[in-house]
């Protein structure tokens, strides 16, 4: 394959990654990494460098729309970023001193198991909103957004401490592997904090850019961000994220949830396979 074809292929794949990543709140690394490593034989370090750029691009590119249209909950996002950034630093420290293969297998298995509650809620449109009390009230973790069919949805968050813990796991994963943070963020907001699905995926999208930026320094300093790989990825992702954001705003919560469940399953299997590859 010639380099021009490589660049064009990565550009097209990244548009797709940007569309799906911006809808489900996962940043697109799930798509970009296997295409680069398995299909194109690129070194995993350069693939992770490209994934970090893909995540930041998906995040900023789609969040600009989600924040303006007030689907993202800014306070929930800022509050949970306390955990995701601390987690990212912890993850980088763990990566320095341990073999990440075993941890990757554990995290992959947790993602796989979390498919069960996700599938049980598969038809859920808007969760029954809990009463706003305790820490959630003190932190102002409440919000309102307009659904695609014009309904105004008012919701409150619950169990902020559990949400914080789940997001810390997401941060550790990002710092450790450079990927996988988005899945745990969405699960924390959906399963623990009981936010509407679109609020969960768009708030995850808002946060993953900061988590990825926290890890970006290490990858950039190591020279893992290869301009030739990253350029088509960045441009494709930004186009995809702009398209994906428009699709999400017009989609139903149930559709977003189904799409998320499918991509969650793919991400879990990818992580477990990669862990097996590492430990063999």
């Amino acid at each position: 394959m010639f380099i021009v074809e490589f660049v064009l292929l990565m550009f097209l794949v990244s548009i797709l990654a940007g569309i799906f990543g911006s809808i489900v709140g996962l940043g697109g690394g799930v798509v970009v990494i296997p295409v680069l490593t398995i299909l194109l034989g690129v070194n995993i370090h350069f693939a992770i460098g490209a994934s970090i750029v893909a995540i930041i691009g998906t995040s900023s590119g789609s969040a600009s729309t989600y924040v303006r249209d007030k689907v993202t909950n800014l306070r929930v996002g800022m509050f949970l970023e306390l955990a995701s950034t601390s987690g990212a630093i912890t993850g980088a420290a763990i990566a320095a001193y341990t073999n990440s293969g075993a941890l990757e297998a554990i995290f992959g298995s947790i993602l796989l198991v979390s498919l069960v509650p996700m599938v049980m809620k598969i038809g859920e449109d808007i969760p029954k909103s809990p009463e706003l009390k305790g820490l959630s009230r003190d932190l102002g973790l409440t919000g309102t957004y307009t659904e695609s069919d014009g309904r105004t949805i008012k919701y409150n968050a619950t169990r902020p401490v559990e949400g914080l813990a789940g997001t810390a796991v997401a941060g550790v994963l990002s710092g450790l592997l450079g990927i996988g943070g988005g899945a745990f963020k969405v699960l924390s907001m959906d399963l623990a904090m009981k936010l509407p699905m679109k609020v969960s995926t768009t708030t995850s999208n808002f946060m993953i850019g900061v988590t990825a930026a926290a890890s970006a320094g290490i990858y950039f300093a190591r020279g893992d961000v290869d301009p030739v790989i990253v350029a088509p990825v960045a441009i494709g992702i930004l186009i995809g994220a702009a398209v994906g954001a428009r699709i999400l705003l017009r989609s139903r919560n149930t559709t977003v949830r189904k799409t998320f469940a499918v991509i969650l399953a793919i991400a879990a299997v990818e992580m477990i396979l990669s862990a097996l590859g590492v430990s063999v």
Partner: protein
Amino acid sequence: MNLRDPESMNLVIGRVLRYGVLISGIIILLGTISLAASSGLSDTAGVLVYNENVPHDGLDVSLASILHGLVTLSAFSWIELGVIVLIATPVARVIISVFLFAAERDRLYVLVTAVVLILLLFSMLVTPFIPGFHA
């Protein structure tokens, strides 16, 4: 725009993200076009992409080399600059959020966002230089 109005926060943050993305996208696009035009795509790049044995620290990403590349209009350096702008966009968003919460007189969230900013800058700028973290 009245910054004390909670509505303005969504507008300002939305714009910061949009401009960051547009500026970095344009710089990366120009760098890519210049790379293709200079036929750099067929020589240097191929080695980097296809040789699994490329040394891990094969790319010179020191600030001095990027600055030198920018002055000499090296396409690689322009793409790197675009990527740096992209990485800086979420950081700018956090910095501006601190001020927006201050304008709303929301002390709790000024504190939350300031702590996030400190953790973020520590992780980005300090951890790469801690021995062992390069593993």
